[in-house]
């Protein structure tokens, strides 16, 4: 097994960190406090090439492999980019654009990918419904075919980028009789009559990302906006799991390094009882814990990415372990990072409390930890 990165990958990672520290990080606190999406930073991610990194160059992408794409996500976290912006990027690129790229026709690819890759358009993906979260197959949104149109009805909730998206990939049932096999995926554009988004929900963390409901009421879309075939929807949503368990988890891995660097610097600087606090065993233990979490999470996440690059079918058990580990085990170290900074850690300015709050999404979004445990125990 090969555990090393190429020189070019490492150079690129360094470049992403440098870019993010200079162009994005100085803006975070302002937008975090306002709980607003930072359009300018998002566009900068597009201009730098991150939003379309893994798409082929002819679609405005960077032609990167999965490992390099994950490396970029890790680099953003390591630079200190907030979980809100990285989530917005993840939902945009992997849940929306990649679904169109992987299952769309050539016309659909040509129409949407270049603009999504550059950040000119923002994308979202609507799967979860008010009464269908973990149990996706129980969704009740419907798509009825009428001539050369589909009529969509229903509502979605917790949709990242919902209020700001130009392009939405929306899942709805074309056959209510069936469970999973009745689900289909559609592209719905902003401004389509009968399609609207709610106001942003007020959340615990990932505050710069905008999350809302999507409403579909007799929303008419051209039949060619169907992605793939009728009934393919569930499998499409499953395919995003590979990205979900690699590229979307990568910023959490990077955030562990960011916390570690901050904690080490603080422990070497802060004095109490006449000594640097880093000399106390309790502090050393916290720092070691953050490092342990980061190392283990990194290996799990890159393992999924490596398998995808090798075109190996997704190992659902490994994917569930990665998701679960980042979700549940990030709690301890991010709490340690807050406490290590004492009162300062509890304050916004020191970034640690933000990372703590942002990390609380990991055991919920894209499949809860309970569901991961269920998958793991079923597959053992």
């Amino acid at each position, binding site marked *: 097994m090969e555990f090393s990165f190429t020189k070019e990958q490492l*150079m690129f990672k360094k470049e992403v960190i440098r870019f993010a520290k200079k162009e994005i990080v100085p803006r975070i606190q302002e937008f975090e406090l306002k709980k607003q999406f930072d359009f300018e930073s998002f566009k900068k991610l597009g201009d730098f090439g991150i939003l379309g990194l893994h798409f082929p160059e002819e679609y405005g992408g*960077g032609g990167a492999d999965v490992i390099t794409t994950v490396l970029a996500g890790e680099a953003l976290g390591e630079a200190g980019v907030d979980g809100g912006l990285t989530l917005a990027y993840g939902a945009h690129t992997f849940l929306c654009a990649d679904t169109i790229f992987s299952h769309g026709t050539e016309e659909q690819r040509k129409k949407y990918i270049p603009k999504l890759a550059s950040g000119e358009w923002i994308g979202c993906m609507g799967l979860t419904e008010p009464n269908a979260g973990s149990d996706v197959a129980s969704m009740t949104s419907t798509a009825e075919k009428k001539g050369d149109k589909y009529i969509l009805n229903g509502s979605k909730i917790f949709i990242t980028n919902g209020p700001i998206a130009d392009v939405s990939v929306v899942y709805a049932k074309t056959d209510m009789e069936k469970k999973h096999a009745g689900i289909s995926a559609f592209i719905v554009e902003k401004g389509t009559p009968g399609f609207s988004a709610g106001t942003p929900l007020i959340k615990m963390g990932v505050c710069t990302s905008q999350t809302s409901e999507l409403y579909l009421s007799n929303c008419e879309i051209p039949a060619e906006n169907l992605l793939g075939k009728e009934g393919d929807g569930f499998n499409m949503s499953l395919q995003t799991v590979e990205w979900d368990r690699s590229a979307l988890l990568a910023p959490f891995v990077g955030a562990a390094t960011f916390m570690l660097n901050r904690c080490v610097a603080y422990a070497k600087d802060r004095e109490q009882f006449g000594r640097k606090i880093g000399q106390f065993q309790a502090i050393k233990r916290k720092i070691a814990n953050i490092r342990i979490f980061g190392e283990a999470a990194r290996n799990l996440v890159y393992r999924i990415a490596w398998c995808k690059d090798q075109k190996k079918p997704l190992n659902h058990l490994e994917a569930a372990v990665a998701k679960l580990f980042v979700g549940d085990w990030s709690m301890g170290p991010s709490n340690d990072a807050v406490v290590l900074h004492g009162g300062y850690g509890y304050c916004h300015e020191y970034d640690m409390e933000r990372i703590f709050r942002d990390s609380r999404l990991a055991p919920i979004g894209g499949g809860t930890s309970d569901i991961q445990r269920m998958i793991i125990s079923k597959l053992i």
Partner: protein
Amino acid sequence: MKILVAAKRVTDPDMVIKVKPDGSGIELSSMSFKMNPFDEIAIEEALRIKEDKGGEVVVAGIGGDKTPTEIRYGLSMGADRGIHVNTGVDPDSDAVARILAKLLEMETPDLVFLGKQAIDVDDNQVAQLLAEYLGWPQACFASRVDIEGNKARVAREVDGGIEVKEIDLPGIISADLRLNEPRYPALPAIMKAKKKEIKQVTPADLGVDITPKVVIRKMAEPPRRKGGRLVADVAELVKLLREEARVI
């Protein structure tokens, strides 16, 4: 237009520098390195001129075995090819200028761009020495460069204003901080740079003796600042300034 840019590998300016305990130099083992920031600006300007007028940008790195990492960075930014003059250790500014003078005989560029100084030793000499050795016109500390025909108009920030110089080409320009904002190499550019040529040359090939004319005998940390002192009133302050510090 063919433009040659010289780029140096320097210690990362964001890192804390430590002097070796024996004073023989800087502790390099734990340092990370990057391209001299002024050289990045020089490459950026060269690339913009090329994008506007066409031509070629060549990056020359002069230094030890690791120098190609920085040359490769310049190629990722968009330069066309590289030249590495392997000097083992970093030569002094005069040797660099003499090496460049020889390289220019081979490469015959229309314009040479350098950073105004390297942020490690801060010598600020190569551009001026090189111009002297070649008898070429120089415009140092450029904050704006306009090329018109075979002339370059160069604005330089000087005390109290902007001075504009016009030089004939071929000539030598050194880049100041505000000339431009260097681009970030994107991934496709990094991958393309992998295939670009870096030619290896030695000082002997060029017939340049790099025995240093400047030798650093000893390095030492600046003395630590002592803590301040509180005075009771203005009268005492004035007395101390007058009698102890002797500044008024």
